[in-house]
Every structure is written in C-alpha cells, then in structure tokens.
C-alpha cells in the first residue's frame, strides 16, 4: 500500500492522464520557480490543444515557450507575455488565444479556485478593458468587478524540498505562484530539488501541505536567469 507516499519514479508517470484539451496551471514568475522538467515532459508527450494558466509564458526555447514550438497550446491566461517572439507571432496569426489578466487577479483566481470559492469582487480593472462583460457591483460606495476563479485538470509546480507526504517548501522568490497553483489542480504534480526523510521538514514551516499534492518527483534544474543584475 502506498499510503501517503506520493513519490513517482518517472516524469512519464508524473504526468500520466494528461490529455489533449486539458487545462494546466503552472507556477513560476518569469523563469523563476518554473516546473521546467514537467514542461519538457509535456513537450515530449506531445499533448495538444492545452489551455495554460501561468503568470508568464516562458521565453523562446525555455520554460512554457517550448510548448509553443509544436503548437501544443491553444489558449493562455497570463498577466504578462513579453520576451517571447514565437508567442507574439502565434498571437498575431490567430493561432493562440490570450486572456490577459491582472497579476493580482490571476493569483486570487488560483487561490479562490483551490479554496472552493467560485468568484470574487475586486476593484482591479474597473473602468479598463478587463471589466468588459463582467458584473460590476458597488460596495461601500466603490465599484468592484466580479472575477471567476480558476481550477485546472493538472497543476504543475516547482518546489525546493518535499517529503513523501507531499509537504512542500519553496526557496526564496521561487515561491511566487507555486503554492497557489498547487491548490488549484485536480491533479497536482510537484517537482522538487530534494525529497527529504519524513520529519525533516518542520511542520510549522510547510508552505504547501501535502493534502493538495498528488504526485512528487525529484529533478535536476537548469534555473536559467532572465536578467542577471549585479552590483557595479
């Protein structure tokens, strides 16, 4: 019996059940804290017609950008999609649909989705194109628009350390959207740099409790830096 042992042996197993047309929520901000091996496995599998929910869409040839090369993505929900020439071309050619979403709203959509809240009201985007077609309500004299939450068939997450129970901690600002994505997947897959012995992670310091996590795998990471900036 596997009990609470959520470790899987291969990336193939990690993404078993991912099919064409599914929605995948990915953690990461820019190239920081992205589940790079899980993304590469989606490329290898050749799954198509995916809806990808992620703050950004990688760069040409790295991160989620690799899924664009074989046109595996049909729709992207993101807050910022610069830094990617292939994405731009597919968008202008009408091959890919993009729903630009304010960053805080995107984070809250994932958080709410994972927390069983179908929609929420926010002042973000009132009076802008983001409000088009959305319900507006006034609370305490201020206008707010209704945003619906997001859940995914799969969530792909990059953690730092995990135990086999699926408890995860993140390293520095590689946390970003990862703990939110982790809550919002029907199947949540977390890849980490190290799987530690049970009891090694301090229960008071866990970022993502194991209840949200279905599969854990240990990988090695390139961790590419987008804007190397040093003191002069």
């Amino acid at each position: 019996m596997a009990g609470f042992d959520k470790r899987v042996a291969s990336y193939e197993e990690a993404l078993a059940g991912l099919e064409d047309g599914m929605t995948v929520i990915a953690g990461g901000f820019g190239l920081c804290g992205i589940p790079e091996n899980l993304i590469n496995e989606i490329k290898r599998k050749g799954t198509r017609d995916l809806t990808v929910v992620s703050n950004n869409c990688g760069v040409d040839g790295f991160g989620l950008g690799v899924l664009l090369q074989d046109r595996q993505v049909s729709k992207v929900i993101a807050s910022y999609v610069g830094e990617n020439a292939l994405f731009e071309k597919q968008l202008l050619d009408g091959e890919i649909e993009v729903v630009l979403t304010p960053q805080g709203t995107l984070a809250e959509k994932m958080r709410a989705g994972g927390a069983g809240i179908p929609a929420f009201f926010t002042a973000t985007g009132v009076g802008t194109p983001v409000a088009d077609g959305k319900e507006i309500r006034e609370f305490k004299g201020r206008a707010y628009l209704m945003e619906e939450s997001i859940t995914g068939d799969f969530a792909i997450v990059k953690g730092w350390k995990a135990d086999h129970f699926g408890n995860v901690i993140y390293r520095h600002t590689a946390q970003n959207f990862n703990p939110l994505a982790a809550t919002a997947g029907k199947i949540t897959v977390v890849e980490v740099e190290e799987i530690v012995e049970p009891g090694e992670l301090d229960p008071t310091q866990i970022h993502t409790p194991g209840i949200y996590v279905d599969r854990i795998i240990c990988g090695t990471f390139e961790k590419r830096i987008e804007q190397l900036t040093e003191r002069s």
Partner: protein
Amino acid sequence: MALTREQMAQRVAREMQDGFYVNLGIGIPTLVANYIPEGMEVMLQSENGLLGMGAFPQKGQADADMINAGKQTVTARTGASIFSSAESFAMIRGGHIDLTVLGAFEVDVQGNIASWMIPGKMVKGMGGAMDLVAGADNIIVTMTHASKDGESKLLSRCSLPLTGAGCIKRVLTDLAYLEIADGAFILKERAPGVSVEEIVRKTAGKLIVPEHVPEMQFA
C-alpha cells in the same frame, strides 16, 4: 532644463517617509531606491513576493531563486519577508502599501491612467499595474511631460485603454510636479530653469497655475 531620469528619481524620493512600505515600478521608479534619504528606513515591496528588497547581488553571488518583479537578480535586506503572489497582492489590494511609484503613457484630469496597451502594437500585458493603481491610495506617476513628437501626455481624457480609473492624484514629469483635483492638473513645482509658459504649452488637459510656482528642490 528638463529633469534627467536621476533627478526625477531624486524628487520622488523626497516623498518617502521613515517607516514607509513602498512599491517601485520598472524604469525611473526603480531608480528612486538610490535616493532614499540617509537615516530613513524604507521597505521596498516587489510584487513577485518580496518585502524588503535589498541591493543587487555582488558579482558572482546572483541566485536564480532571488529576483524582483523586473526579473532582475536581487538580495533581501535584514527584516525582509518572502511570500506567495496571492499574499503579495493582498498587501497591494488591501491598501497596505504606503507609496506606489509607477510609469505611464498618459494621465488625465480625472485621475485616469493609461500605461499598458497601445492598440495596434504588440500587447504584452498589464502585469501587476492594474492591481497597484486600484489598491494604493498614495501613488506618484513618473513620466515625460510630452512625447518625443511634442504631444502632451497630460490630457483632458486618456486616449489609450486605461490601467485604472480615477486613481491618480500626483504626477512628476521631467518639467513639473503636479497634483490632480476637481477635474484639473494643479501646477505645484516646476523643474529648475523651466518656465511656466512651457509647462502650460505642453499640458493638454485643464491646468491651474497658482500665483507662485516654486522651483523644485532635490535635497
């Protein structure tokens, strides 16, 4: 003379107060961090999930897991905290940030701001700008007063799609520091050597010019 980017950053830094939590946007706002007055303690928030952003790392010390919202490698100062994007925007949306500084393409006399989209050009996205302008009470917009072709960016009504409606009260340009109230720009300070006439000529929206418009101070 129009202000340099560094002078604009220096002028904005005068709005800092000891104990402020501050979010600085990309571009000129980022430079403000270089001019925080000596002896004053300020915590910089970066919306990817860092409160207490420090200096850029020393050569060879950059860490791929430690970046700011501009995706540059940074460090964390003593007293910093790191958290998720939802927590980060809870701070922003919840009005906990004391001062937000960000750039723009246009602002208008109603306090509207356009900063993220030029129709017909590639749209890269709004990032966190819409959340920042909706959540903050105290915002300073930094931008050039007019475009390279001489077109005013201080308008009666923004022509570009908005980032936020009715949320801007203060603007620092390379020519002037202005406030927005009751459907007009109010000229509060002019850049050294810049005439009131030039500012009037380059401001398309309604502009109220008080009897005395002092020259800007930087220290």
